[in-house]
């Protein structure tokens, strides 16, 4: 375990299998809505977490978007008006001025965990 891991408190959110591959789900984490995505990239399983609130529609829906990639960035398309967000950084692809919060997330055994 790295130093950082020791500093932060990792909290169990759900079983890995509760989120299907290449899909997202929304989790309640310290009163915030977090969209967690499991993505298979070139055979390697990755996990991302960003805030579930879409700054364009003001609705809590990011977790229900389609996952994919645009010019090598792994992104989710917000389901209402289809803006894309970089899952690694929370940056909106269409509008430089807009980004959403990201969260530390990991697989731990068969669990998915988030950290503050």
């Amino acid at each position, binding site marked *: 375990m790295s130093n950082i891991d020791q500093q932060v408190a990792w909290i169990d*959110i*759900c079983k890995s299998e*509760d*989120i*299907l*591959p*290449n*899909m997202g*789900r*929304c*989790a*309640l984490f310290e009163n915030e*809505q977090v969209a*967690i995505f499991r*993505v298979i*990239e070139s055979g390697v399983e990755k996990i991302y977490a960003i805030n579930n*609130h879409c700054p364009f*529609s*003001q*609705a*809590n*829906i990011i977790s*229900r*978007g*389609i*996952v*994919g*990639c*645009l*010019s*090598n960035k*792994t*992104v989710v*398309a917000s*389901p*209402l008006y*289809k803006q*894309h967000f970089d899952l690694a950084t929370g940056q909106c692809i269409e509008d430089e001025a807009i980004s959403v919060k990201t969260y530390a997330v990991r697989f731990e055994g068969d669990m998915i965990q988030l950290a503050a």
Partner: protein
Amino acid sequence: MSNKSNLVVIGNGPVGHHFLESLVQSGKSTDYNITVFGEEPRPAYDRVHLTAWFETRDAAAINMVEDGYYPANDITLYTKDKVLAIDRSAKTVTSESGKVLSYDKIILATGSFPFVPPVPGHDRENIFVYRTIEDLEAITAAAEKGKTGAVIGGGLLGLEAAKALKDLDLETHVVEFAPRLMAVQIDDGGGKMLRKKIEDLGVSVHTAKNTKNISDGENAVHKMSFADGQELEVDIIVFSAGIRPRDELAKSSELKMGERGGIVINNQCQTSDKDIYAIGEVALWDNKIFGLIAPGNAMAKAACDHLTGCGDSEFAGADMSTKLKLMGVDVASIGDAHGNTPNSRSYTYVNDRDEVYKKIVVSSDDKYLLGAVLIGDASEYGSLLQFMLNKMELPSEPEGLILPQVDGQSTGLGVDALPDTAQLCSCMNVTKADVVCAVEAGATTIGDIKDATKAATGCGGCAALITQVLNNQLEKNGVEVNTDLCEHFAYTRQDLYNIIRIEKIQSFEVLLEKHGSGLGCDICKPTAASLLASCWNKYILEKPLHGLQDTNDYFMGNMQKDGTYSVVPRIPGGEITPDKLIVLGEVAKKYNLYTKITGGQRVDLFGARSEELPLIWRELIDAGFETGHAYGKSLRTVKSCVGETWCRYGVQDSMGMSLLLENRYKGLRSPHKLKMAVSGCTRECAEAQSKDVGVIATENGWNMYVCGNGGMKPRHADLFASDLDDVTLIKYIDRLFMFYVRTADRLQRTSVWMDNMEGGLEYLQSVIIDDKLEVCAELEKEMSLVVDSYQCEWKSTLDDPERMKRFSHFVNSDQSDDNVVFTQERKQIRPKSKNESIELVVID
């Protein structure tokens, strides 16, 4: 008395009308008292598309004069009032109804009449010509009583008349004096190929036949006797042996005429009397009559320019090249089709299998194109015409222009090479510069170009070339005309469809691995999901298909602006029992859903949270409802009227048909949503002509309309086929929908699909009705697979407890989304807007 001068226009055909439009456009029409005399009972109609009258049997369909256009521009039109005399010394005209008008200027636009050779018996009953709506009405009435028909004359108009007879279900003959069809426009080889193709369609062609006499027949109404001793018996005869100018007024008022008729005009279209102009088919320029619409329009413009002084266009002759579809056969003739130019060379390509004939005539040094004949495939017409008209130098081996293309090589004309002045559309006189200009002003589709310039709205022969110029210009402007679906697939939707079918691909993963790259995206995933569903129709939430679905398909409801969903159960044809209606009310009440009757004859329940969806649907399904696919790019509703069961006018059971259709096509995934409607009679209460497929009952069956659209750009549906029985109707719809699924772009409604299809309605008919591409059996098979594998997605979902989990808002909590907040309006819920701090005052 006003100080305006008196302008009298004699003849209200297409050219006379075009003149009036030009005059109004010039802004000078207010300088004149304008009176128009027309002999026919109605204002100008589009004679070029005369045959289209048969589609609706309604003159309005080919009307050229918008309602109120003449009165709005202070133009007085007298219909059914022929001008009998022009008195040039008193400067008056006299009409049949007795009007005597003084004139300052006259425009003669009296057109021409069909020539009927003085064969004995030519004036018998049941013998017609093919020029006016009244002619077609008479032919139609006669055809009801007859079995066989002959057209005398195998020229362009004769073949068009023959098609009409064939469509009226007559056994049809074409009798031509010359040794080949269309002797004026095409050469021997072309004539042979054309004949073969027309005979394939079941029309008998008799060439080198001189009709000597027409008398009573033994087995039919007429007996035609030919110079070679042979005979032919038919019930109906249509003469189409050429046209003659209607120059009788010029004759009696002693204007200068040609030896064989026609009123002599100069480049300004003035006759020998400077106050009288002649335009259109009645005018003789350089000893030539021009029997096409484009030169007529050019004359109208020249006359208008000269009269008003607003422009300086002149009539300087016209190119008589033509491209047509005769009985579904492409025929084109350009310039010196016969190779009459001394020392010219020609190159010919003949393909007996596909029945294609192509010839080009070039100058002795191979540098310039002089003429061409294309039969069976006229796709090169546009570029060949441009080579000739603009005297552009040909590529070094000009035969390449008509030879089949070897992969990747393009020998055609680079549209870039065309000068700005090149006339792309001769019917509407549209140049390359006009098209480029329209693109600069924002046009991006051929439809936009049509709207902006009228190009390609006449004979349609220029559509392919205009599209090339359009795409070329868009490309130059940096607009992507890249047709790749997205960055992950270098294919169009249509390519992917074929790949999936041919390789029997069942999943996105395999498609991506074999033909794509990256992870996919929100464009290609739903597209692939739709294609896989169109092809194999598996349950859309089956793993891993579920990950491809847009949220609407994934939650099987449309996501609303606040993240809640709508619930729209199927109510086929809008028919619902009171009990079911009560269930809807009870469910809506229990879950506090906003309730509305939709524009599609069903009920929409809004404001369902994702976690409530399964509970709501459980109750609906138990009460016998199914999903309404309001979320899918798939069949929405089949709107229906009550039909003959209740309505005093109904002639068929529209309700029964709409149920049949809705239940057959529900669940079909397609490039965009599909809507249908069925009306019980011609009053059309179900608005079928605004639907992708509309069905209207007739005394004898059903009329089928296709490719209508409401929405952003309304388009009336086109009549596709008439008086169909149930089985044929279903067969055609099966084929049409599957062909659409195969060939449309992503999110392209049928209206846009058809408008962008080369050949349009006729082509579609040839594919679906005549099976030109020989795909109909496959299309039907594909549709029956979809029909047989239908399942209600909501029912399948509720049957599987595993799948129920995904509807909770949180993966780790039973709480609801606290961001969803409703307020009340008119006694129902609605989403609270973000800046709504005070409760709304509810007024009801």
